[in-house]
């Protein structure tokens, strides 16, 4: 492929790609994202390739491993174009049938389609599925249509047309003004307006400036950046180049977590392809604008997601944050103006340039514009990535898209914003998601993690979990974070172990306040949020742990016991056979008894006890009843007992 030298040539090239592709020919898109691969997508891709080759359909049918469309719960996902027929939980064995029926004979294999749980209706097309229906996918929508390793696929769908428009029809100031007007706010956490950040850098006197993609997605339970990096790397790269143009920077960086090896590979490949096409490098599209991009890998430190820590790490040092007397957009990487934005923020830039700021501001709420991708996980029926307009209510996301809580359990709270966010209780479910709305509720948008918690989740344990995570990830530079977190963690661990005492809650509040006030960076400042929000909405759970040594959610191991109800046990022996600690005594037709001294509280007995008996129960805050007397342990069938 020769270099593309002008915006017109790019257009011609796009037409060329499209003319080679017959839109009526079937295309099999198989999600090759992390979730689907873990469920066996690789074997499905292989099976499709082999079967297509075997049947000699290679010339007619195109197979591609694509990025993640978000419906991880039902993976591996296969979508067949042009009809857009969506199959879920596809296994390699299903492949010959799909080819025979759908590809050769245009029939739908109904058993592989999603059935909407409420109505039982079969959803043939992707857009019929309840999970997708209520979403508005502007950033994620191309993931399933693009072979993530093909720049041609991206260009065919209009890729790099925003870059061509920016370089060809707009001045750098026009681009900046458009982004400012769109009120695009950073998708990584704090929600700082991207346009203002850019403007600061642009106006800084230092001539050498940098633009950086923050792809150090460390929030446990959030994977939207990963899906974009792996699935549609060119969209982020295009955004970055446009950003470079707008602030007159000629050097860009991707800082990618090393835990995302596929993202690193795909980004590197995207850069190489863009260079070959002349979309990166010198004199891009004949505009005279030069731009280079480098990829740096992180080395496993959550704090490196913080802007100044990330820049320190880019300089080849331990990623400790710096005080921000001067903002990093004025003095950042190597003390030069540096614009750092999150992956999703950059991916929005080409859309804004292409469709205009007015389009962007027509979506969302007063202060939060556009869409946001959330990773909906935890105790939820439809785990996956969800892209909705800002202003959608939590209730809609959890129930209409997420399909509610599994196993008929009761919703307790939703945790948003990762370790620096908070828990939102049921009575606030009508809250519209947006940067300011979530902050007001004591949580935050963060990068968009949304973890649903049900009645079995202990809120003290959730707070302890996040504080433990942050204790481990604190860089140790400043005392309120390093020592404060350690003490908070110690107290919370004691509470969950039943060693809490009067005054613990007050001490926690005091420590939290100090960490919020006096920490150097956002990690410490935000660290107390999970604790404070759970204290605010679930104080009774803390009190039950401390005063009654009881875990209301029956989750804290040290505070619960497993007990077999002698009235319900039918002596089936399931629990005895599976108990890894040999703690259960019993025999056929004998009521089973758990030896509390041997029990490791792994919960296996609770899980394997057949639901028709459900004789294993969890107790907390009350003593375990005395074991039933030996002579009463023999189980007599009720029918026989009646006969006597």
């Amino acid at each position: 492929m020769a270099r593309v030298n002008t915006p017109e040539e790019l257009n011609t090239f796009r037409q060329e790609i499209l003319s080679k592709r017959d839109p009526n020919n079937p295309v099999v898109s198989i999600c090759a994202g992390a979730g689907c691969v873990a469920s066996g997508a690789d074997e499905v891709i292989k099976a499709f390739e082999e079967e297509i080759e075997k049947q000699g359909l290679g010339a007619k049918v195109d197979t591609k491993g694509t990025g993640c469309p978000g419906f991880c719960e039902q993976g591996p996902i296969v979508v067949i174009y042009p009809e857009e027929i969506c199959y879920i939980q596809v296994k390699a064995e299903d492949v010959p049938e799909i080819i025979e029926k759908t590809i050769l004979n245009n029939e739908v294999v109904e058993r592989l389609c999603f059935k909407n749980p409420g109505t039982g209706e079969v959803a043939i097309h992707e857009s019929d599925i309840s999970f997708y229906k209520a979403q508005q996918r502007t950033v994620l929508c191309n993931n399933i249509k693009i072979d993530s390793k093909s720049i041609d696929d991206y260009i065919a769908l209009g890729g790099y047309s925003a870059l061509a428009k920016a370089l060809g029809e707009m001045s750098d100031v026009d681009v900046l003004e458009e982004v400012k007007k769109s009120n695009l706010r950073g998708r990584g956490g704090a929600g700082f307006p991207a346009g203002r950040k850019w403007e600061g850098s642009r106006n800084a006197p230092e001539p050498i400036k940098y633009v950086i993609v923050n792809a150090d997605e460390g929030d446990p339970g959030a994977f939207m950046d990963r899906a974009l990096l792996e699935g549609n790397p060119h969209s982020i790269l295009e955004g970055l180049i446009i950003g470079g143009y707008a602030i007159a920077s000629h050097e860009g960086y991707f800082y990618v977590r090393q835990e995302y090896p596929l993202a690193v590979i795909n980004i590197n490949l995207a850069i190489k392809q863009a260079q070959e096409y002349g979309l990166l490098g010198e004199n891009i599209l004949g505009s005279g604008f030069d731009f280079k991009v480098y990829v740096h890998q992180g080395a496993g430190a959550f704090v490196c997601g913080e802007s100044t820590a990330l820049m320190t790490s880019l300089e080849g040092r331990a990623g400790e944050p710096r005080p921000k007397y001067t903002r990093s957009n004025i003095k950042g990487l190597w003390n030069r103006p540096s614009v750092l934005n999150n992956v999703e923020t950059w991916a929005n830039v080409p859309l804004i340039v292409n469709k205009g700021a007015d389009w962007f501001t027509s979506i969302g709420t007063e202060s939060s514009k556009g869409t946001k991708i959330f990773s909906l996980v935890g105790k939820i029926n439809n785990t996956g990535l969800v892209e909705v307009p800002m202003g959608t209510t939590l209730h809609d996301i959890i129930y209409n898209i997420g399909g509610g809580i599994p196993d008929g359990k009761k919703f307790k709270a939703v945790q948003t914003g990762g370790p620096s966010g908070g828990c939102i209780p049921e009575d606030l479910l009508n809250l519209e998601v947006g940067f300011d709305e979530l902050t007001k509720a004591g949580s935050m948008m963060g990068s968009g993690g949304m973890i649903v918690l049900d009645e079995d989740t202990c809120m003290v344990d959730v707070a302890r979990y996040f504080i433990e995570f942050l204790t481990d990830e604190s860089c140790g530079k400043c005392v309120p974070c390093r020592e404060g977190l350690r003490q908070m963690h110690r107290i919370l661990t004691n509470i969950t172990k039943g060693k809490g005492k009067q005054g613990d809650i007050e001490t926690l509040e005091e420590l939290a306040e100090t960490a919020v006030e006096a920490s150097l960076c956002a990690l410490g400042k935000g660290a107390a949020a999970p604790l404070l929000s759970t204290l605010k909405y679930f104080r009774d759970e803390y009190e039950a742990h401390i005063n009654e040594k009881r875990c209301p959610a029956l989750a804290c191991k040290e505070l619960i016991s497993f007990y077999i109800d002698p009235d319900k046990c039918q002596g089936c022996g399931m629990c005895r056979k599976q108990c890894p600690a040999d703690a259960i005594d019993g025999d056929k037709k004998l009521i089973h008894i758990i030896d509390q001294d041997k029990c490791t509280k792994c919960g296996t007995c609770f899980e394997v006890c057949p639901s028709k008996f459900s004789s294993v129960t969890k107790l907390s805050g009350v003593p375990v009843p005395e074991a039933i007397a030996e002579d009463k342990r023999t189980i007599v069938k009720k029918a026989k007992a009646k006969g006597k």
Partner: protein
Amino acid sequence: MEIDKIDKIIDKHNCEAASLLQIMLDIQKENNWLTKEALARVSERLDVPLNRIQHIATFYKAFSLVPKGRHKVHICVGTACHVRGATRILDTVEEATGIKPGETDLDLKYSLETVNCLGCCALGPVMEVDGKVHGKMTPVKAADALKTYE
């Protein structure tokens, strides 16, 4: 690890001190852990004091200053897995392998680590052994899965 292999990695990054992290990551990837000799060589070639290299090697989780076992067991303790019972899986694996997270057993069979999200939350709780994901784990399934590794 041989000196010329280390030199090759250093040369690949143009012997630049700014690429220190990338060089160390490459050595870690190649050798599975960072030997004292390797770090000394990097220090010498890049003209970076060894204490700064030690600082980096202990700061970031990706680096190991001790050898690793044949099988790398990662238990995901991301939030989604945590609320679905990852702690119970971790307890079981600790029991089965006799080691705690961050440790390697004496036979160099297992290295156990916890990780903060593998991005397959739909399958939680998740255990990953040598890159293979074992999803929807229960204590019993986790113990059984470990038995298949030699």
